[in-house]
């Protein structure tokens, strides 16, 4: 045995060691991802009957009946799905711009920078999982806001501005409405962009200072520096952040579509239907990620 081992080349030994190290992943991947994924694909095209007495469940092939039910018969799913994807696409640029802006801000040196960074990063820890869902339907905060607005009886500059701008011509009005919606949801965007800020920040810190110095000596203004140095140097991280934002969006616990899918499964025990819904959602998200990364990766400047 020992002799046989010594005959192995170094590369082969390394290969064996490498596979031993990643063995937990391979086992877990096959057991808990590949097999369930295929099963879920099979479930989505069959009718699942739970049969506890026979010790398990059976699947009968029914073609695309489940997909049909999810998209055409189920009253809520399609509406939720479209609304959800729309929100995702609209929120994406806002999250990116906000996190990039904050990262630029936090990359400058000022007093108490560590403290401010800590605050911006806090939502990653505190607003995760169950807390996000609760935050969302916190009707009390809304009530209080209304009460304050009623009692103070003052109209702010933004509301007046909003009334003026949104009421204008239809297309420009829509654009302004989008901007105002974003301003209203700046809190949601802020608590969602913790990780993105860190990613951008780490990118900004890797840009060498000498590049900026050289540009400054050549007479580059800060504005030009931003467009010609900062943005290209972090452009590869934009793609990372886009993918992270999308994944984060559909893994978040207050995602209505996911909530609905879970309800279908745990609440009404329709395993087949929920599998079909999950697949539809998954494919939509994959398509969005694919299209966006195709577009972005052509314009990205990679560096090592």
């Amino acid at each position: 045995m020992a002799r046989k081992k010594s005959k192995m080349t170094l590369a082969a030994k390394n290969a064996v060691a490498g596979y031993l190290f990643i063995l937990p992943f391979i086992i877990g991947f096959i057991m808990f991802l590949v097999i369930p994924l295929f099963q879920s694909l099979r479930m989505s095209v069959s009718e699942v009957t739970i049969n506890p007495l026979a010790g398990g469940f059976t699947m009968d092939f029914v073609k695309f009946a489940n997909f049909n039910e999810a998209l055409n018969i189920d009253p809520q799913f399609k509406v939720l799905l479209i609304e959800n994807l729309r929100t995702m696409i609209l929120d994406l640029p806002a999250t990116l711009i906000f996190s990039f802006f904050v990262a630029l801000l936090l990359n400058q040196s000022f007093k108490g920078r560590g403290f401010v960074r800590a605050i911006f990063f806090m939502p990653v820890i505190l607003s995760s999982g169950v807390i996000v869902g609760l935050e969302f339907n916190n009707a009390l905060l809304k009530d209080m806001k209304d009460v304050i607005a009623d009692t103070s009886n003052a109209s702010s500059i933004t509301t007046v501005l909003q009334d003026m701008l949104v009421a204008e011509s239809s297309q420009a009005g829509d654009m302004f409405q989008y901007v105002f919606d974003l301003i209203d949801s700046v809190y949601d965007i802020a608590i969602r962009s913790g990780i993105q800020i860190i990613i951008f920040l780490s990118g900004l810190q890797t840009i060498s200072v000498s590049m900026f110095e050289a540009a400054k000596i050549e007479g580059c203004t800060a504005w030009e520096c931003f467009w010609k140095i900062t943005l290209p140097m972090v452009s590869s991280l934009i793609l990372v952040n886009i993918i992270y934002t999308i994944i984060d969006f559909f893994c978040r616990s207050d995602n209505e579509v996911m909530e609905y899918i879970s309800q279908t499964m745990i609440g009404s025990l329709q395993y087949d239907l929920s599998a079909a819904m999950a697949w539809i959602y998954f494919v939509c998200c994959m398509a969005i990620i694919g299209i966006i990364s195709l577009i972005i990766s052509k314009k990205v400047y990679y560096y090592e």
Partner: protein
Amino acid sequence: MSKKNGKWQAFMERNRKSGGYLLRKKIFNFVYVICRAILIFGLCFLIVQPLLNKISLSFMEEKDLYDSTIVNIPRNFTTVGYKLTSQLMHYWKALGTTTYISLLVSVFQVAAATLVGYGFARYKFPLRNFWFFMVILVIIVPPQTIMAPLYLNFTYFNPLGIIKLVTGGKTLNLTNTMLPYMLLCLGCMGLKSGLYIYLIRQFFRNVPKDIEEAAYVDGCGKFKTFYRIMLPDAKPIITSCFLFAFVWQWTDKFYSRMFLRGYTLLSTELNGLSASLDDFVKGAGIAEKASQAYSGAIVATGTLMTIIPLLIIYVFAQKGFVESLSQSGIKM
């Protein structure tokens, strides 16, 4: 006074020589710093405000909630809300269980992720890129896609037909134990496991190879090199991943609801808090249902009580969260 005057004169002299540029620059910088400070303060306030709001709500008496003249500072300071919430949430029991399970889960997850991440970073083996692409796939695939079959498989646990042979036609129901979830964590399929693998691999890739080679030359075995030489070096990233795993598991709802239903966890208790408050109010015969404002205040108290341990961890280990993550040099 004269010294100050002298300074000012010298400044004006320099300003005159630069053709007004110096003064403009100074004023511009000053205005910029002020604007930035206001902006940063505003954004920080935006993030902290809900927390402060919850703190003030949690100390209010019920009648304070309906009084529109009370906005932030409670007039009737009380801790009744805390007592009621801890009773409704079974707080101490849930706290103990949550700590125990989060610790267990994060240790398993990070141990598995460290091994795998090290393997990916340091060894060349056939199909390495393929397997790494699979790690990315794990990050991308939402757990909801596979949860239905996963759940059924664990409800009727029967790997390769072994259990059926032993028990004679019966399958095991594992959904009331924590075994399925622990298996998932060990197999790198737990909550955000793929992300930890990615981060740890990124870290190990940036460690210089010389140390390792020196160890090999001195006759250190492969696994020994890993845990005697490389592991101590990787402490920051492992701590960071451990903290993330711990915190995310603490607040996780999805996996807890699926696999840990037999346990009193803070996240699930918090999720059902307003319902149990309704039951409590009904049982006490006060009203049919708790009012919306009161239930909101109690939920705020419960949220605070859930995140207080996390806040304490964050205050002490803030560097562990942020710094190592930005040092890992995330690149695609």
